[in-house]
């Protein structure tokens, strides 16, 4: 009698396990129901890990609210380093309405990232090591307290979009004035609104991709940039702030990671014009007659593509050429007069 019951129970458990497996692995069946699956469940998951932050500001168009996300069960919160945190204390409100006083643990101004701590336990949080990179064209979700729409026990706003680009922030005077000039994710949704900075960008199934950055506007075109800082970039500094261990600080001159510079334009017989301004256009200055580019590229050509990468400056050209792997050919597209000319150059073997 009890044997049968146990067997049934076991069978029941197996069935439940199978069901769970199906639900976890197959997002496709959800899409077959006529409409694409809505992201209701992942959204609940993420929204419980994103917080509303209220602090300094409220004057001269500076908002006194922002966003952040929990990164530990006992209440560490990653957010953007901004004037909002420049208060005696800031208030952190979870999606269920619980309010905490947030204390600043530390900040890495070069990355515009800061960490707050609230007195909590068993809080839902993002494991930074679980953050994933995403490929272009992926569908993404953005979560933030933009425009302070959410208050009290309301979850923050969620938006959907597509990952449009992963590029380096071209931060400089006259364009996007930001201290940060590392890689960013650019999205096609209007994610970077007042109060959105410190929110998260996730995959459509709710996995962490990046932190929404501060509002940035191109000074010339007036366009706003909708972007997020990848978690890979933030993971180490955030961990260092949380642990207080800065020994591996990347800006430490002794620990600067070796730049990948396997090749230089000269290896391909290209002499570029001197890199004198922030964004020197990559014009070819000279072609040594005995070099590999002789007869293929001419002085005055503007190099537009290295492989599939658009090179907007001599600096980017140097970086892209530096990354090439030994062997095979590299395809360059140059503008000559009004034409686009494609050439292939062999990549010299190196040890």
């Amino acid at each position, binding site marked *: 009698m009890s044997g049968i019951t146990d067997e049934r129970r076991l069978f029941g458990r197996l069935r439940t396990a199978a069901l769970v497996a199906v639900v976890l692995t197959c997002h496709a069946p959800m899409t077959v129901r006529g409409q694409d699956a809505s992201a209701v469940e992942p959204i609940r998951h993420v929204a419980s890990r994103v917080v509303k932050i209220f602090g300094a500001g409220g004057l001269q168009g500076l908002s006194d609210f922002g966003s952040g996300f929990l990164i530990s069960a006992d209440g560490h919160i990653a957010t953007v380093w901004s004037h909002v945190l420049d208060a005696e204390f800031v208030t952190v409100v979870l999606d269920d*309405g619980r*309010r905490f006083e947030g204390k600043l643990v530390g900040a890495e101004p070069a990355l515009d990232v800061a960490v707050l701590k609230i007195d909590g336990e068993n809080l839902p949080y993002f494991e930074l090591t679980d953050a994933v990179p995403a490929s272009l064209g992926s569908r993404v979700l953005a979560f933030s307290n933009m425009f302070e*729409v959410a208050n*009290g026990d309301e979850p923050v*706003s969620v938006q959907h979009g597509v990952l449009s680009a992963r590029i380096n922030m071209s931060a400089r005077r006259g364009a996007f004035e930001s201290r940060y000039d590392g890689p960013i994710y650019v999205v096609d949704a209007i994610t970077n609104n*007042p109060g959105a900075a410190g929110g998260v960008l996730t995959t459509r199934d709710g996995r962490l991709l990046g932190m929404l950055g501060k509002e940035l506007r191109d000074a010339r075109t007036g366009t706003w940039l909708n972007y997020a800082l990848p978690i890979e970039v933030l993971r180490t500094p955030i961990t260092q702030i949380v642990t207080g261990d800065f020994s591996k600080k990347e800006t430490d001159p002794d620990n600067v990671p070796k730049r990948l510079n396997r090749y230089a334009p000269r290896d391909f017989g290209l002499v570029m014009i001197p890199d004198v301004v922030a964004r020197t256009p990559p014009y070819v200055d000279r072609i040594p007659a005995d070099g590999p580019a002789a007869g293929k590229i001419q002085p005055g050509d503007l190099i537009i593509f290295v492989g599939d990468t658009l090179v907007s400056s001599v600096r980017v050209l140097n970086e892209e050429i530096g990354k090439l792997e030994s062997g095979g050919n590299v395809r360059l597209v140059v503008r000559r007069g009004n034409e*686009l000319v494609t050439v292939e150059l062999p990549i010299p073997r190196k040890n």
Partner: protein
Amino acid sequence: MRTPRGLTVSRWAGLACLVLVAVGRPAVAVDDAVLEAERARIATIEKVAPSVVAIFSSKGGGGGSGVLISPDGYALSNYHVTSACGEFMKCGLNDGKLYDAVIVGIDPTGDVALIKMLGRDDFPVATLGDSDQLKQGDWVYVMGNPFLLATDFAPTVTYGIVSGVHRYQYPAGTILEYTDCIQTDASINPGNSGGPLFNSAGELVGINGRGSFEKRGRVNVGAGYAISINQIKHFLDHLKSGRIVDHATLGATVRTDRLSRAVVVDSILPQSEAFRRGLREGDEIVSFAGRPIGSVNQFKNILGIYPDGWTVPLVYRREEQKTEIYVRLRPLHHQSELAETQGPKVPDPRQPPHPGPDGGPQPPPAEAAKDDLDADLKKLHEGRPGYANYYFNRQHQSRLEEGLKEFAGWSGRRGTWKFSGATDANQTFRVLLAEQSVGMWLDDKPYLQPLDAVDWLDEPPGTGGLLVAFQQFKWLVSEGPEAFTEFAYFGSEPLDGRGPLVDVLLTERGTLGARWYFRQSDGALIGYDSSLLADQDECRIRFVETVAFSGLRFPATFSVSSGDKQLGVFKVQQVEPPAK
């Protein structure tokens, strides 16, 4: 050797071939589920697009969007769209045709307007959905006429997700307030105002009307707001009444307690019904209209979806003791405040309906100002203070008067009425409705209400003026509308806050007021509330049964209550009507 130009041309030719190949046969196999989802989207859009309205001012200039909700032409839009258009407007559908439309009712606080399109009784309509079922992440369609782009009136479709539900948007400069609204990242731009928000099944779940704009100019920045259709359902009959409808206040304000974070009563008006039912400063609001209260915004959200006059339940806690009360909500504004909103005078600082000089082609040429309108059309609008269009109120008055036909035999019988019987507490009663006064004997104890006096009495005491209530019924069935200084259809409300929706006829005679309740299914009068003065507990009469006494129908059994007291069920055994 090819010339450079030839090279260029051949490269383009090659590219063209590639494009052709790509079109002819997809290089990448597309998942069937994706194609199926696309087909479903297209089918949904085709299904609902005919109900989407492009609204233009007949004077030229402004415009917006709307959505049809009944085959005889009722359509919803934003108040801030129609207020710029005046009493008559032009409405285009995706069949390419332009229809005349007239304003019916407006809700300036909730930013909703009801219009009636004319010329057909088979307009394509949207199905009303249940906006409380929406969740963050659900797919939604926004349709309408952003930037007044559609010269053929085919609506623009934008697609997005629900970014948030039950959002509260503070009033900004005007009395407009978006409560319990739906936030979406589907593009909402100027011109989309008044247009529909559909869920993935193509059901109408909201009316788009607002965006967060701030410093980025008045275009979509990924945060648009729609008024929930569930809120509009509460107001729909009010809007059909042709009135300028009002939202409500509890007569009390709330705040979050600093320590407990509970939502507590901050201040309360002594003349409010909530006060009379026992609510006091410092009481914790546990639930309101059946929804739990966790924040001040939640309270405002819930309050904002109810019309003035509705009765809703409220649970409060004092010293661990929970109490449930039912309170009738008071009007949020003075009539004069709302009257100011009439006509095209109120600018909306956030989203004026004018899309601006680069906002696309101008709407169809100005047909005519009202003076040049067709005479038949002009008949469909009547101005009157407190009303967007009194014409529609008169239609409903006639409809409700049909429900009084049951008592038609009493018409003109202004002489002395006598009726008597016993209550469920075995008290005997005799009532005399004479021309000079009303008298009642309850177990031989007499009560009197003179009719030549200006003082209306709460007789018997604590009943809210039962004698006056009897007299009001006499006025209604013997004299009709002429007996009252005000006689108007008000809208609908759930009877006593918990019953089915009933139509409400509002009457006034001096300071006396009455709300008469008609069953929506058959139009029968089923009871009324009679009040001596505003802000006093009224006398509530509910008919249990009507019986014919020598050919004249009379409410033979009725219950009487006032405030939170049940005063008894009266059974009439004898009725003596006067001669006609």
